[in-house]
């Protein structure tokens, strides 16, 4: 066994290293052998001539010995491959232009595919780092109300009941996103903070790298002053000091004892409204007040994560939860509507809306590579045609079909591997660029990198690519009848219809794929444009905004917060560039918040009488600062202090008083369960840009002074000029106040479409490259066929054909596959459009303008690509053309 192995190894070695040297050595060895034989014969008295003859006889056939020796020395298969490789390298060297185009386009295609794959891999494919992630689910409650069911975050009392009463549920953890100011180790700044139940870490299976996680008793008011830090905060603010454990740090100007550090990879599967990719830096115990626990309905304010027991299915768990859910409306006094829940597998939840978009991008970039392959196959086919004579001679000399096939394939694989190697280098850079330049709501995107999985993918893709564009030409070449090829070898003959048709088919395929990509990119572009021009309900122009968070003992008393805002608003309105200013608890386009019901006085606890609305607290200047239209009544004024007043959006007013054209002055119960008089009705404002505005209720800030607001300022001059004065005003109020970036409202709106913009940019780039490659393909095939038909064209001209007739002839022939491909592409795009409908906004996949536009672009590009070679053909001098042979 070892002997065989050893021999195999030596043979392989023999092939790779000593081929030429070995041949010469062996010849010499044989030569001296024969010499010795002959000399012996001479010694026996034979004449020298005869001695040599005999020696050769005794030795046997020298050539067949050599051949046997050669076959045994190396491995014939490898020899063949080595030969093919040398041949391929020669072929590439002979045609460096083609090789450069091929390698570069492959590098771009494979590189882009590898880059997108590394995103897909890290976001969609790589398993989550949680323990047994298949048993983890995010929970939403399905809230019945007057207009259907909406998934909302969960009520903490409900979540406790699931953990207690559902046998399939192992644990439920609650969390609430927040932010908290930390001043240690730098400027005071806000960090995303999660208040979590103590069990969340055990539930997810994460262990701290230092210290411990929370204890159950730390969820009690009074003993909750402990905090866990993320590894990144620990490094950036505490120099990775291990002694920080047990120390007190100031968070929101209160003392918290650091008890643990979480590993850097850890992400909380937290998702409420539009925010799903928050990287929390601080974790505090969640303390639930007595009044919160008492609330059976409403208070849908917590994110919940649930672990099922081993062996239980999601359906079982959900059925049990829904039984528990059914009791809450009943306890709250309503019988005819059902409260339900929804379980979302945590891996799906963690990828959120990026899932569809990433698959779309992956498909698009795959299509680009396919187009590149088709183009190269086409170019190779063209070269094959001119090499068919050579191939015919080879097969006449006894080269087997397999060898011929292998030769062409080796060339394409060599090109693919060169391109792939370059592409992998390029992809590392591309991934870095993608990850570092985008601020996207794609969880785990920042983990994306070119790792071993990605490399294996890239290698397989490269080999596959080489096969895809090499197989067709190789097959064509070996199918040639050598006799016919030799006969037809004189180049005066116009190329056979069959070969041309094959290549035209490939062009149609290229054009079809490009058309589909172009249409999809167009649909996305249309969606983005429409989104940016949608009636938002406010005017972002000339508006500056900055987030303000009040935290710590200074602002524990609501009255202190109220006074802070009073003073701040007075100072801000005194700034010369400021026209109007106001505060609001949540800016439009940043998501829905504070979902709680409002209802009429005397209404029961019945769900359909309690209308969930988006509740926000604002200052008198807010509506004017944002140019939100007041449709009836008025906005808040100073004289409203001390009175329970509210402003409703039109939709909210209709929920309370359907059909009442002028409800101003009527009374209802607000989110704080206190009576309010309606003083105004305002226009709808979008809480999320791409969904319909929710019903909204506004209250003056002094009715429940918030601890976090956004200040909005309408300026007279360019918005940024007031920024400095704004900062000074804030600092003079409280020097310790963390100040977030001052941004224009336009930036804020823009930030909310960043993900769409990212998708569109990539999609646009893919479509553009597809278009470029396809146009090169069209140009290539038309100019090639013009060159092949020079002779025919010359004859036509000699017979009196007009220039434009020839032009028309060439263009007609070149455009036929383009038009065919376009038709197929439009059909394909209709299917694709349906698949990505979730990414579109107010644009139908059948959108006429988009499709027509894409067709027009491709037709123009196709025409230009045909026209250049066609003009050359029409300009042919007939005499020269006929003499050309």
């Amino acid at each position: 066994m070892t002997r065989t192995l050893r021999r195999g190894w030596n043979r392989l070695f023999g092939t790779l290293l000593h081929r030429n040297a070995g041949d010469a050595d062996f010849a010499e060895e044989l030569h001296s052998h024969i010499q010795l034989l002959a000399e012996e014969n001479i010694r026996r008295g034979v004449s020298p001539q005869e001695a040599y003859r005999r020696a050769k006889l005794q030795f046997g056939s020298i050539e067949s010995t050599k051949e046997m020796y050669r076959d045994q020395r190396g491995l014939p298969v490898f020899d063949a491959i080595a030969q093919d490789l040398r041949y391929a390298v020669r072929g590439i060297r002979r045609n460096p232009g083609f090789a450069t185009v091929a390698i570069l386009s492959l590098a771009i295609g494979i590189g882009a595919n590898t880059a997108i794959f590394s995103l897909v891999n890290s976001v969609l494919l790589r398993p989550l780092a949680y323990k047994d992630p298949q048993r983890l689910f995010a929970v939403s409650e399905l809230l019945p109300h007057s207009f259907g069911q909406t998934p909302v975050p969960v009520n903490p009392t409900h979540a406790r009941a699931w953990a207690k009463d559902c046998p399939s549920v192992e644990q439920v953890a609650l969390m609430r996103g927040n932010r908290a100011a930390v001043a240690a180790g730098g400027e005071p700044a806000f960090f995303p903070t999660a208040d979590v139940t103590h069990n969340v870490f055990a539930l997810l299976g994460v262990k701290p790298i230092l210290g411990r996680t929370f204890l159950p008793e730390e969820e009690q008011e009074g003993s909750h002053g402990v905090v866990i830090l993320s590894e990144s905060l620990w490094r950036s603010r505490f120099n990775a000091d291990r002694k920080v454990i047990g120390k007190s740090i100031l968070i929101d100007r209160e003392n918290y004892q650091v008890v643990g550090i979480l590993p850097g990879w850890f992400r909380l599967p937290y998702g409420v409204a539009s925010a799903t990719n928050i990287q929390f830096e601080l974790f505090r115990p969640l303390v639930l007040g007595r009044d919160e626990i008492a609330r059976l309905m409403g208070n849908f304010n917590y994110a919940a994560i649930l672990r099922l027991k081993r062996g239980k299915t999601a359906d079982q768990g959900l059925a049990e939860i829904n039984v528990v859910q059914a009791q809450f409306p009943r306890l709250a006094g309503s019988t005819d509507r059902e409260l339900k829940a929804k379980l979302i597998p945590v891996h799906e939840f963690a990828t959120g809306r990026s899932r569809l978009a990433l698959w779309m991008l992956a498909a698009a970039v795959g299509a680009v590579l396919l187009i590149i392959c088709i183009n190269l196959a086409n170019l190779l086919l063209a070269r094959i045609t001119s090499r068919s004579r050579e191939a015919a001679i080879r097969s006449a000399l006894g080269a087997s079909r397999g060898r011929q096939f292998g030769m062409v394939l080796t060339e394409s694989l060599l090109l693919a591997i060169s391109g792939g190697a370059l592409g992998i280098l390029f992809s590392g850079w591309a991934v870095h660029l993608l990850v570092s330049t985008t601020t996207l709501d794609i969880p785990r995107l920042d983990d994306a990198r070119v790792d071993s999985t990605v490399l294996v993918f890239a290698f397989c893709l490269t080999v596959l690519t080489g096969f895809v564009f090499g197989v067709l030409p190789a097959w064509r070449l070996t199918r040639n009848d050598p006799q016919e090829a030799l006969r037809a070898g004189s180049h005066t003959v116009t190329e056979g219809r069959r070969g041309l048709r094959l290549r035209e088919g490939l062009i149609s395929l290229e054009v079809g794929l490009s058309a589909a990509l172009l249409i999809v990119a167009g649909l996305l572009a249309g969606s983005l444009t429409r989104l940016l021009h949608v009636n938002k309900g406010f005017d972002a122009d000339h508006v500056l905004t900055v987030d303000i968070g009040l935290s710590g003992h200074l602002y524990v008393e609501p009255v202190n917060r109220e006074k802070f805002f009073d003073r701040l608003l007075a100072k801000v309105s005194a700034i010369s560039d400021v026209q109007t200013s106001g505060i609001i608890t949540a800016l439009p386009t940043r998501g829905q918040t504070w979902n709680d019901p409002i209802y009429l006085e005397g209404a029961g606890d019945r769900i359909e009488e309690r209308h969930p609305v988006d509740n926000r607290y604002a200052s008198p200047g807010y509506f004017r600062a944002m140019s939100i239209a007041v449709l009836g009544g008025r906005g808040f004024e100073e004289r409203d202090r001390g009175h329970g007043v509210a402003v409703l959006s039109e939709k909210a007013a209709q929920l309370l008083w359907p059909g009442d054209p002028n409800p101003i002055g009527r009374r209802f119960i607000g989110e704080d369960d206190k009576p309010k008089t309606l003083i105004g009705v305002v226009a709808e404002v979008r809480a999320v840009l791409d969904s319909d505005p929710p019903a909204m209720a506004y209250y003056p800030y002094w009715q429940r002074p918030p601890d976090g607001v956004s200040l909005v300022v309408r300026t007279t001059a360019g918005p940024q000029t007031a920024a400095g004065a704004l900062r000074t005003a804030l600092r003079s109020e409280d020097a310790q106040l963390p100040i977030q970036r001052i941004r224009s409202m336009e930036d804020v709106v823009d930030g909310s479409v960043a993900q769409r913009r990212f998708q569109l940019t990539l999609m646009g780039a893919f479509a553009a490259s597809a278009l470029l490659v396809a146009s090169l393909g069209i140009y290539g095939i038309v100019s090639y066929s013009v060159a092949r038909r020079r002779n025919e064209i010359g004859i036509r001209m000699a017979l009196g054909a007009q220039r434009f007739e020839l032009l028309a002839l060439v263009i007609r022939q070149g455009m036929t596959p383009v038009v065919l491909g376009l038709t197929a592409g439009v059909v394909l795009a209709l299917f694709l459009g349906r698949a990505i409908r979730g990414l579109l906004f107010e644009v139908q996949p059948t959108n006429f303008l988009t499709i027509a536009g894409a067709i027009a672009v491709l037709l123009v590009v196709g025409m230009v690509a045909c026209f250049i070679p066609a003009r050359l053909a029409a300009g042919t001098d007939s005499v020269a053309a006929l003499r050309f042979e």
Partner: protein
Amino acid sequence: MSAKAEVWQGTLALLVLKTLNAMGPQHGYGIARRIEQTSEDLLSINHGTLYPVLLKLEQEGAIASEWGVSENNRRAKFYRITRAGQKQLASEVSQWEQATEIVGRFLALKGAKA
């Protein structure tokens, strides 16, 4: 010629090993001649067929080769048996003896019918 026996391939390797073991380093010609002489010219080998066998043995590591100078002052490749080759030789010799013994016993049988 007709009296001379042909050497079949498998056996040739054994003969080569045995020759090299007995005589020390030899070039191809020397090995071929030695085999012919030992068999008192009863065994005839086509000298050419020796080389694939030598190559195979060398690839298996049973013999090693180096260039040297022959008795007539020519450059020639000298083969010598390696330690692994000696082991191989010993085991092949015992296999061969066993095989001939068994075959010999069969041939020595007196037919019951005869």
